[in-house]
């Protein structure tokens, strides 16, 4: 009896500890976002006084009005949206198409193609040869540099493939008897059945495109027409960090009027909100997708 009550006391203590720990994790994760949200809606002169936590003291929309007046940001926003939509569509279709052919046990070229794809997961050419390739292909300074090198991800191909492998093959065979060819089988049978895994890779691809800034920095830094939102944010971030001025003269004036701090926070929110709206709803899919990929590798 004594032992029993003792254990339940330590059990309760441990439970309390776990709950407190989890609440702290949640606060540490969320606080920076809430703080930034509060600053982005707060009057920028008032912000300088400091002491803001998770709610604005003097509510204003001026920071957002200012950032939506920057040409660079508008262009960047447009480009980020286009590359995310186009890139995700292409990425999902091409990964599933490739995965389908590799999952067909009777496909002649299946073995060597699988090998050619799997091998690339173990090496990369590296930064400089990759850069020179883009240069030689004439992709530098173009919008296609966001799309063409990212047409396919081998990782996604294998995730989708292991999903297709789990589908009953009899479905394809009966469709074949009904006279369907491989092309129609892919579009009419495989794709609709793959929805859960396609949602997963669509999320991965979309987030990758939306968050990318390095390709803009490397390949499009001299072409303001092809700038992206993340790259613009990065420029503001680095310029306020080092104390130098943001290059766009138009923006410089506006920043002087509002304060770079508030601008930075407002852009951060603009960049984060789309992700926030999407990922919680896909959680059950990507958790499964992650596990699938890990088991396969």
């Amino acid at each position, binding site marked *: 009896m004594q032992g029993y009550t003792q*254990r339940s006391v*330590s059990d309760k203590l*441990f*439970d309390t500890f*776990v*709950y407190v720990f*989890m609440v702290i*994790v*949640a606060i*540490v*994760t969320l606080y*920076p*976002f809430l703080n930034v949200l509060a600053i982005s809606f707060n009057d920028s002169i008032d912000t300088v006084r*400091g002491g*803001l936590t998770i709610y604005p003291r003097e509510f204003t929309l001026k920071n957002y009005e200012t950032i939506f007046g920057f040409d660079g940001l508008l262009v960047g926003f447009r480009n980020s949206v286009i590359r995310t939509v186009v890139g995700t569509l292409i990425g999902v279709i091409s990964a599933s*198409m490739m995965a389908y*052919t*590799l999952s067909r046990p009777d*496909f*002649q070229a299946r073995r060597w*193609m699988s090998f050619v794809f799997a091998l690339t997961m173990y*090496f*990369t*050419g*590296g*930064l*400089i*040869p990759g*850069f*020179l*390739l883009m240069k030689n*292909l004439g992709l530098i300074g173009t919008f296609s540099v966001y799309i063409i*090198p990212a*047409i*396919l991800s*081998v990782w996604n191909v294998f995730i989708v493939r292991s999903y297709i492998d789990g589908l009953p093959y009899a479905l394809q065979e009966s469709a074949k008897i009904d006279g369907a*060819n*491989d*092309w129609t089988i892919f579009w009419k049978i495989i794709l609709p059945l793959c929805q859960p895994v396609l949602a997963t890779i669509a999320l991965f691809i979309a987030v990758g495109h939306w*968050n990318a800034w*390095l390709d803009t920095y*490397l390949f499009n830094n001299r072409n303001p027409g092809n700038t992206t939102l*993340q790259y613009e*944010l*990065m420029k503001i*971030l680095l310029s306020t*960090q*080092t104390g130098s001025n943001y290059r766009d003269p138009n923006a410089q004036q506006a920043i002087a009027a509002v304060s770079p701090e508030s601008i930075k*926070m407002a852009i*951060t929110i603009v*960049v*984060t909100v789309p*992700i*926030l709206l999407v*990922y919680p709803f896909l*959680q059950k899919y990507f*958790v499964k997708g*992650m*596990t699938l990929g*890990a088991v396969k590798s």
Partner: protein
Amino acid sequence: MKPLTEGIPKASVSKKENRFWSKAFQQRYLYMMSLPFVIWIFIFSYVPVWGWLTAFQNYKPKNSILNQKWVGFDNFIELFQDERFYLVLRNTLAMSTMGLVVGFTIPVIFALLLNELRGQFFKRSVQTISYLPHFVSWVVVAGLVTKMLSTDGGAVNQLLIYLHIIDTPIQFMAKGELFWGILTLSDLWKEMGWNSIIFLAAMAGIDPELYEASTVDGAGRFRKMWHITLPGIRTTFMVLFILSIGHLVSIGFEKQFLLGNPLVTDFSEVLDLYALKYGIQMSRYSYGTAIGIFNSVVSILLVLIANGIYKRVTKESII
């Protein structure tokens, strides 16, 4: 693809050949759906490896790769004689080792504790929140970290002052010796929840009978965690760990680039950043490629060594 037909009796070959081509024709849609991507991967993944040749040349972009001055190992010799290289290598290894240790232990503990939670709604909410930073870009994270650590109104400084641990705000981002720690913690903040997914999945796969049996035997909660849950995720853990060791030198440079500033470069510059600086910004392509090759060779060696040790200890192989 096409079989060689010369010098072989015609009849027997053409039969085989016919079978091959008629099957290929039957599968023409499969070829249509895959060949473009094979060509694509050849260009974007295999051709750059061909570019490794530039490391042994004095590469000038105006000529083709075959029409260059060959210099042998000069670029590598120059690299190994540069003092900066060793500093950069130190930074790379320090940050990747710290990332490896912290980035594995904490997510495992997090998963272990999540696994002990009873309330499903609370558990799911914490998980959803913990995944959020993974989906946010490093640009945003760098901004948040700089904000939280800033001297005017940064939450960390405010908290430390409030708790009377310090009197005046610390200039976190300007202190080189703090950079490794800041980077590791930022990475942990971003990826802890995400990295715990796999461990949670492995825990969910443990046979419940094991727990029931141990309850009958009178094992308490900690005993079960120690003797059932942790051994249950061992294989998953080791596979991921050994694969990560391969990335010790190629940790990328995104975080270092975004979190670093001129005051802390002696601690923030990593191999890839060094390659970027020389290779692209100074247009010394051959030198930059040599750094990249060094990276790849060391990565492969590290994976093989780690796998070898693991094999010796457990008699199992990962690769």
